[in-house]
């Protein structure tokens, strides 16, 4: 056996170590109780020798019968002989083995021997029947009777003493057995407890194994996710890069014929592509920080109307032909959040709204307070989101089948490609996670064919301080 095998065996035995003492108590008590019960069972048999009183009484009765036989007026020699034999046989019985020892114990053996001798001295078999012999036997019978009575008396007293002592012993034994069985019961309880505890431990270990397996599975998921992530992001980078490349080629080919309007147009295209790249990189960086727990929100009071206004102005520059409206409920609405992260979220919601709604429809932004929250709602008049896609809208890499499919970017060709993380399936997921990081959330309502409202909720700033914009 290897060292490790030996150690495992040792460990296995060690597991049973707590059992040994209780097991010993359990088995010991049971064996003790069994032995005691068995002794009791053997002792409880009644032996005929213990019925000494009956033997003495029989002797007394025979003496009486003999006395009557020899004392009567019409004596029958044969009957007297038989009575004599019977009386003698009882005397002989009393002087035999166990009976003799019993009588010796109570100090009457000598008396019985004397009785037997005086009886044999008047044996009709030897002396022949005669009125004198009968008279002598009668006198002897009258003399023996009270003596045997005394013996019977002593035997009875001793029998009762012995019986009482025996019952006392039985009771004591019974008590011991009860105690032993109780001990065994307690030990059995203890063993059950130890067993249960071990089982719980086993169960816990099994759970830990399961948890470890789950962790491993998660780890695999995460690495798969990163593979997807790398593929999608590199694909998304290719489009703006090729746009930049083709614009530069075009300018190079035109050579001297390049006019101011050409340069203007290329500059706009390249600027757009660079913007997309910047936002993509921004998104990726944010996600990376988020996943590594390195993203810390720097909380400050945010004047929401001003922030939204500036984001909308910027978007208006990029989309000069789209209609955008901002409405604010009264006065300054101040949220608690990180300026950079909140800007990123609202940009994402606004660019999605622009992207997934017809070019001639309006996009509306509303800033308002509700309870302890501050909200920024972005409403579009797009296609809405299919019911089956709604539960997965905030999942990373989610690609819906139809409708709005904000996360999938299937219709990105239609838009101007300015969404942050557009087409990566990352934009809304990131926005949602960023909102949660700041104690907020994103909710949405959608009406297929009519449009959607996406709302960013942030906790309101309790005190009015300096506003960041």
């Amino acid at each position, binding site marked *: 056996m290897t060292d490790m095998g030996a150690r495992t065996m040792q460990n296995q035995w060690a597991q049973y170590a707590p059992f040994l003492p209780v097991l010993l108590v359990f088995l010991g008590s049971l064996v003790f109780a069994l032995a005691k019960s068995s002794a009791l069972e053997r002792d409880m*048999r*009644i032996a005929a020798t213990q019925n000494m009183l009956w033997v003495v009484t029989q002797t007394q009765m025979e003496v009486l019968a003999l006395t009557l036989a020899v004392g009567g007026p019409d004596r029958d020699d044969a009957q007297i002989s038989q009575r004599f034999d019977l009386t003698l*046989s009882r005397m*002989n*019985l009393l*002087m035999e083995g166990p009976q003799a020892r019993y009588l010796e114990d109570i100090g009457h053996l000598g008396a019985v*021997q004397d009785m037997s*001798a005086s009886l044999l001295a008047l*044996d009709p*078999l030897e002396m022949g029947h005669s009125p004198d012999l009968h008279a002598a036997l009668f006198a002897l019978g009258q003399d023996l009777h009270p003596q045997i009575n005394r013996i019977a008396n002593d035997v009875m007293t001793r029998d009762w003493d012995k019986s009482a002592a025996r019952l006392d012993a039985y009771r004591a034994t019974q008590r011991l057995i009860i105690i032993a069985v109780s001990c065994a019961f307690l030990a059995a309880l203890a063993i059950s407890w130890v067993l249960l505890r071990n089982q719980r431990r086993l169960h816990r270990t099994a759970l830990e194994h399961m948890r470890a397996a789950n962790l491993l599975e998660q780890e695999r998921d995460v690495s798969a996710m990163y593979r997807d992530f790398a593929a999608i992001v590199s694909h998304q980078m290719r489009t703006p890069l090729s746009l930049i490349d083709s614009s530069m080629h075009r300018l190079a080919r035109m050579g001297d014929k390049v006019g101011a309007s050409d340069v203007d147009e290329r500059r706009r295209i390249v600027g757009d592509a660079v913007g997309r790249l910047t936002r993509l990189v921004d998104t990726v960086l944010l996600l990376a920080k988020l996943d590594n727990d390195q993203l810390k929100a720097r909380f400050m009071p945010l004047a929401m109307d001003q922030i939204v206004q500036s984001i909308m102005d910027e978007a208006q520059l990029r989309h000069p032909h789209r209609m955008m409206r901002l409405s604010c409920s009264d006065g300054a609405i101040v949220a608690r959040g990180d300026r950079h992260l909140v800007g990123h979220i609202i940009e994402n919601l606004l660019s999605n709204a622009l992207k997934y709604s017809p070019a001639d429809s309006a996009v509306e932004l509303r800033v308002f307070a509700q309870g302890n929250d501050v909200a920024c709602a972005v409403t579009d008049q797009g296609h809405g989101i299919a019911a089956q896609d709604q539960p997965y809208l905030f999942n990373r890499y989610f690609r819906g089948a139809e409708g709005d499919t904000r996360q999938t970017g299937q219709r990105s060709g239609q838009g101007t490609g300015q969404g942050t993380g557009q087409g990566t399936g990352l934009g809304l997921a990131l926005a949602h996670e960023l909102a949660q990081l700041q104690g907020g959330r994103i909710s949405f309502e959608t009406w297929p064919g009519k449009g959607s409202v996406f709302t960013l909720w942030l906790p309101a700033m309790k005190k009015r301080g300096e506003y960041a914009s």
Partner: protein
Amino acid sequence: MKQAPRLWACAVVLLTSWPVLADMPVLTITGAIDGDEASLTVNDLRALPQHQLTTSTTVTDGTPEFTGFLMRDLLATVQAQGDTVVAYAMNDYRMEIPVSDFHDFDVLGALSMDGMPLNPRDKGPVWIVYPRDNHRELQDIRFDTRWVWQLVSLHVE
């Protein structure tokens, strides 16, 4: 052991008178048997196949060797038909014994103990002896009472 010489004297006396007893009827069988009554002498009983049985008893020390006939042989001799035998002793002791006892165990009608014929001044001439050392269930007061000594009659029912 003060009484030993006297016992020996007694035994000698009885042995000398034994031939007289041997021809006298000592056991009467009545009830469900062939004929009304069967009277058997010691000689009749000795004529049955004799068996030895060594066993302890409740009234003696040690394990005496008994010699005698099997109770089932005796009942077969008189063609007894019954389930129960009522045994009577000389002193009118009465005990009912199931006939099955005699078939389940080799129960002896002992005529002698340790080579000495049993006599009416002891437990004779016939003592019903069970093989109690060979069967644990026989070591019980309910069987001890069936050891009828000074047996004088049997009634088959």
